[in-house]
């Protein structure tokens, strides 16, 4: 008789169909064929995890057709099953997996759109903190380089492809002109959770660098210099008004002034 851990490993591999099935003599199922019943578990695992992926990647499903998506999802599940039971975290590797599919090699925008959708899923699972307004700091001396804290759900994604255009075009049921949407054109996207929804915005290089630096806690001075490096005409005031206006600022901290003599 197999030790329980060995038995469970054998069963798990049988359910994922990565190894020959568990020996039928180890199982019972009344008068039914136990190996046929094992397929119930195989189907449950595959179909439920496929449903998880379809919920996270709805635009990708539409881009490649549902039947093809289900086929690719089955392969992904078999090779990369979840490693934890928190399924909100399952699918992070799916965009990268799509890049390995030969059939999709001439459609890189599929994997890139999937990458955007995964980023949206991450943002939707992140906290949405109360935002601050500019007027709250009217009478506060913030020093030369305050630390601006942004919403934890803020995600910044850059792609060589027009991923936001593709994603936006698939939010309605209208017929899609795929040829015009699939353009090799760099897009920098900021997205964050606002209540039940996610908000997305296109950024230029300077604003992307600015928000990226702030998101990583590098302070306003560093963020501004990064933005100016990309665009000498970068408008700091407009950028700050935009951040506050979008509800992205959750705190402004005065950094201690470095000691000087």
């Amino acid at each position, binding site marked *: 008789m197999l030790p329980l851990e060995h038995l469970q490993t054998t069963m798990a*591999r049988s359910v994922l169909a990565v190894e020959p099935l568990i020996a039928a003599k180890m199982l019972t*199922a009344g008068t039914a064929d136990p190996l046929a019943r094992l397929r119930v578990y195989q189907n449950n695992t595959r179909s439920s995890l496929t449903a998880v992926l379809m919920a996270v990647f709805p635009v990708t499903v539409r881009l490649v057709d549902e039947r093809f998506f289900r086929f690719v999802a089955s392969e992904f599940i078999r090779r990369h099953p979840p490693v*934890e039971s928190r399924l909100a975290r399952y699918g992070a590797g799916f965009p990268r997996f799509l890049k390995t599919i030969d059939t999709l090699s001439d459609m890189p925008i599929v994997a890139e759109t999937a990458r955007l959708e995964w980023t949206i899923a991450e943002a939707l*699972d992140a906290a949405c903190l109360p935002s601050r307004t500019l007027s709250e700091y009217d009478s506060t001396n913030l020093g030369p380089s305050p630390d601006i804290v942004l919403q934890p759900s803020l995600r910044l994604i850059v792609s060589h492809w027009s991923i936001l255009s593709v994603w936006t075009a698939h939010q309605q049921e209208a017929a899609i002109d795929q040829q015009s949407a699939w353009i090799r054109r760099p897009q920098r996207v900021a997205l964050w959770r606002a209540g039940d929804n996610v908000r997305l915005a296109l950024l230029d290089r300077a604003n992307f660098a600015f928000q990226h630096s702030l998101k990583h806690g590098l302070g306003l001075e560093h963020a501004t210099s990064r933005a100016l490096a990309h665009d000498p005409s970068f408008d700091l005031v407009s950028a700050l008004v935009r951040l506050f206006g979008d509800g992205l600022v959750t705190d402004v901290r005065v950094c201690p002034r470095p000691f000087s003599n």
Partner: protein
Amino acid sequence: MTPAFQSLTIPAIAGIGLRSPHIKEMLSRRPSAGWLEVHAENYMGDGAGVEALERLRETYPLSVHGVGLSLGSARGVDHDHLQRLRKVCERFQPDLVSEHLAWSVADGAYLNDLLPLRYDEEALAIVARNVETVQDTLKRRVLIENLSAYIAFADSSMNEAEFLAELVERTGCGLLLDVNNVYVSAHNLQYDAEAFIDSLPSDSIGEIHLAGHATNQVGADTVLIDDHGSRVPPVVWTLYQHAISRLGPRPTLIEWDTDVPVLDVLLGEAMWADMLSASIMFNRKQAVRRNQSAGHRSTPIRLPVDNEPTTSMPVLAAFAAARSAGPSVSATPASIEEQYHAAA
């Protein structure tokens, strides 16, 4: 910051599983649902659902039902996942916490399904150790749910009910009796569903689950699939009736996970569970009263209720009892209502 919630005890009436399509309506309508149950794993992040549940928790008693702890895993429970469950419990302060007698993690993979154990001494020692770890971490008793199964292991040395009874004995855990699971497993593995329920330690059963199942025909094999995708079928209501008759009222959950209907359908199913439970208790008390009445009379009489058609509905049964009691019981609506409340 975790808000401090008022302690709300889950009553021995029906509640519903909170599903995402219903959250907005629950927040706006605040319908009369006895209590709510959520899947722990859906509330381990910081999404909008978490904020909504915090608001609902102010109104409704809450049960947290884990589906991913894999209590039957030979390698033990995932420490990180257990800590996440602890945080969910600290955040929402539920009255009940439950998990399954099953495993879903092995070989580094989470299968997103609940697989059966080989019921033997080795598995019992492992599950008991895992349950104790969970109870120690959460600092509370947890309820363990019986499984819906499609296969069993030939080398099992006991059945699932015996395993659960021994688990209760060793760990002090409670039980969650899923009546639909009993029906599904009993059909698929060919055992007596009522005998399964009768052999569980009844005092340990702190909650009941009800749900629908699908029927699949695979060649000559009719296999029932626990899909939680339809109304509670009559056969499961009948088994529920058997359980309540034996156990008395218990917190009862209507589960619905696939093809989720409008909220009112779930609320209607919950109302039906309440009526059925109240009816059983009403009839039981009526029977006791009849017996007491018969015992007090010097000469045996034929109880009028014996000649009346029986009904399972408490209100109708009350009318029937009032009619047959004749002049000794007032037939005014107020008396009937009084009698019903006294019985229920």
